[in-house]
């Protein structure tokens, strides 16, 4: 197994899938000649040509719509948003067209499209460019939402997303493109959507984390282990469909749950997980479910304030201690 970055893993997934199926094309701002704002699409224009790798104007609603139309007539578009902050402009096409077309056409039109790009916080890019929007997209029936936290997951899940016949919102993390990890060489390495993973086993408390908060949760678990608290860290990997069974079974074992997320707390994915755990495992809870979220303010620009707005290892440790009554 090669050790590569998430950036390289995504690039491999794109390249392998596009070589496998000529109906797949990639479209977005700066994806071709500039090789991607974050270099995820490096080398693809040279290898696959300008009919498959297409630069667009700064028109998110327009090229998202082009993608949906192309998907309706049989192609398999991958739409890159330079960041998911700009997908806000394209939400009409994502939500009103892509998510609903199969339903509204009575099953006539599958929309095998992937909307991908980085989301979440970056480094001091302030309020409009530091948003975790997964709960928006996960809200709508018809959309799948995927958020990898490791290079292997990034590759396996992106390949699964591209092969999926439904629209998938694939949210990478801007701070994580350089994260390294082992990735299987097998070109058929695909991770099914809707299947979470226990990233660390433990018996005293369950931490559910995704994307950037997975490494944070793992560090917190390490610190807590020294205090004799054994944490189970679960990454659902797919936000919708959500592998709630994995979470519920863990909570039944540990009796306590902390959800860690970059997004704002109100109406976040953590709220949903907490609700479902309450519905399914109420009698197993020994403490209220605790969230560690991004704080409920627009992301500050100042470095010191930005640091305070994002979940930290210390906050996760404190939350686990709280639900463990320590």
């Amino acid at each position, binding site marked *: 197994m090669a050790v590569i970055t998430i950036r390289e893993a995504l690039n491999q997934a794109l390249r392998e899938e596009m070589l496998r199926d000529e109906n797949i094309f990639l479209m977005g701002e700066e994806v071709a000649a500039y090789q991607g704002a974050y270099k995820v699409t490096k080398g693809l224009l040279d290898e696959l040509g300008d009919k498959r790798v297409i630069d667009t104007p700064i028109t998110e609603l327009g090229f998202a719509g082009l993608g949906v139309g192309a998907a309706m007539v049989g192609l398999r578009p991958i739409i890159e948003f330079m960041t998911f902050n700009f997908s806000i402009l394209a939400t009409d096409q994502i939500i009103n067209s892509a998510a609903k077309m199969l339903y509204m056409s009575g099953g006539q039109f599958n929309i095998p499209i992937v909307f991908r790009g980085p989301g979440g916080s970056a480094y001091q890019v302030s309020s409009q460019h530091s948003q975790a929007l997964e709960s928006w997209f996960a809200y709508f029936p018809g959309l799948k939402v995927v958020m990898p936290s490791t290079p292997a997951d990034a590759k396996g899940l992106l390949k699964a997303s591209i092969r999926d016949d439904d629209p998938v919102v694939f949210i990478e993390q801007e701070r994580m493109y350089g994260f390294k990890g082992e990735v299987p060489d097998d070109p058929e390495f695909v991770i099914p959507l809707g299947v979470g993973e226990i990233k660390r086993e433990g018996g005293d408390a369950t931490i559910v984390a995704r994307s950037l908060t997975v490494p944070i949760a793992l560090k917190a678990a390490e610190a807590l282990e020294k205090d004799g608290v054994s944490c189970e860290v679960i990454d659902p990997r797919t936000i919708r469909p959500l592998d709630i069974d994995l979470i519920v079974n863990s909570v039944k074992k540990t*009796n306590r749950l902390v959800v860690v997320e970059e997004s704002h707390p109100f109406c976040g994915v953590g709220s949903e997980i907490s609700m479902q755990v309450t519905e399914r495992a*109420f*009698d*197993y*809870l*020994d*403490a209220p479910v605790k969230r560690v979220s991004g704080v409920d303010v627009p992301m500050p620009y100042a470095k010191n304030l930005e640091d305070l707005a994002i979940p930290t290892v210390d906050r996760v440790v404190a939350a686990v201690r709280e639900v463990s*009554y320590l």
Partner: protein
Amino acid sequence: MATQVIMPKLSPTMEEGQLSRWLKKEGDTVSMGEPLAEIDTDKATMEMQALGSGVLRKILIQEGESAPLGQLIAIIGEPDEDISALANQAAPAKPAEVATSAPASEPAAEEPAEAPRDAAPAKTAEPAQGDGQQPSEPKPAESGGRLIVSPLAARMAAEAGVDLRAVTGSGPGGRIIKRDVEGLISGAAPAAKAAPQHQLRAVEPGARRQAVPGQPSTYHDEPISEMRRTIAKRLVTSLGPIPHFFLTVEIEMDRAAEMRAGINALEPDLKLSLNDIIIKCAAAALLQHPQVNASFQDKAVRYYDHADIGVAVAIEDGLITPIIRAADQKSLSEIAGEVRDLADRARNRKLRPEEYMGASFSISNLGMFGIDEFTAVINPPEGAILAVGAMTPKPVVRDNQVVVRQMMHVTMSCDHRVIDGATGAKFLQTFKKILENPLFLVV
């Protein structure tokens, strides 16, 4: 001129109203038509409008209290107007809950009229404990008369039959949590057990859980006792890996019953049971069929020289099989005495391990429960177990005549690795022969 604010009729059937929330506090300026308070009627929460203008001088009933229609509940007047005459004639309000708040006719002037709504239940919600009398039990984790318990702790306590009022909560605000209940269960003093009606659940199931049509049955889980855990562990090592097969035979018991009656008539103190005779006959048959008095070992089949017969005894929360060692060499009276002694001590959990471990064959008798026939699960490593049903009178054909005989079914479960079908059948044949003609015991 002061305006008397009275409890208005807000629904056709309303007889009294509960003051849900004051929208103005004493000293506030109000004008005619402005919302003054929210009133809970028998139907809904309604807004009450001010019917005069001025300053809300006096609030006479507090949030959460009730008043009948027409009762004076507040006074609107000029800032300097003397309202004492009006205020004095006000009737006391009727508290909604057991009185813990101040009497309504004397509202403390400092007390903010618009106390936060959320605080109200905590202040007044004292469930009927009997006229405000303090219950004698300790209630460390109560808040406003309610036990604060985590759902898990509540479930654990309900399952263990632990009275949570005896538990000191170590969680925030005295919340009773898992470890508190665990501590109590592990140190389980009998005094901590409570009558079922005191059990507390996070989700109160009601006096009796009703079956919901079309829904799977409700259920409750009980923690596994050590004995149950051992039974489970041992028995799944049985039916799973052991290839069981079953042989059933019907036995005419008249002579055995006759013999029992005869012996008991001679020796009333002996209280010989049919089961004692069955044990003795089985032991005799086993000696004639050593292939059945055997167990499968990893690399060998072990044949036993004597019939060490385990006798399944039901005890509270499980069963245990004390052993009659060398039953083949013991007399019926010895067997009867030993069985009684072992069974008594089994029920009192006084058996030593060697008294219930290492039988060569077992007998399980459910006849006293009216079971006609059943199959038992082999207790490894034994090679077989005999399941004995009830003796019942039945019409049978003897010499072309229908006659009534005492019939009994026995089913032997065999470990096929040790015992083959014919081997088992021959043993049962012998067993049947002896039991039907117990004289063979002395032949």
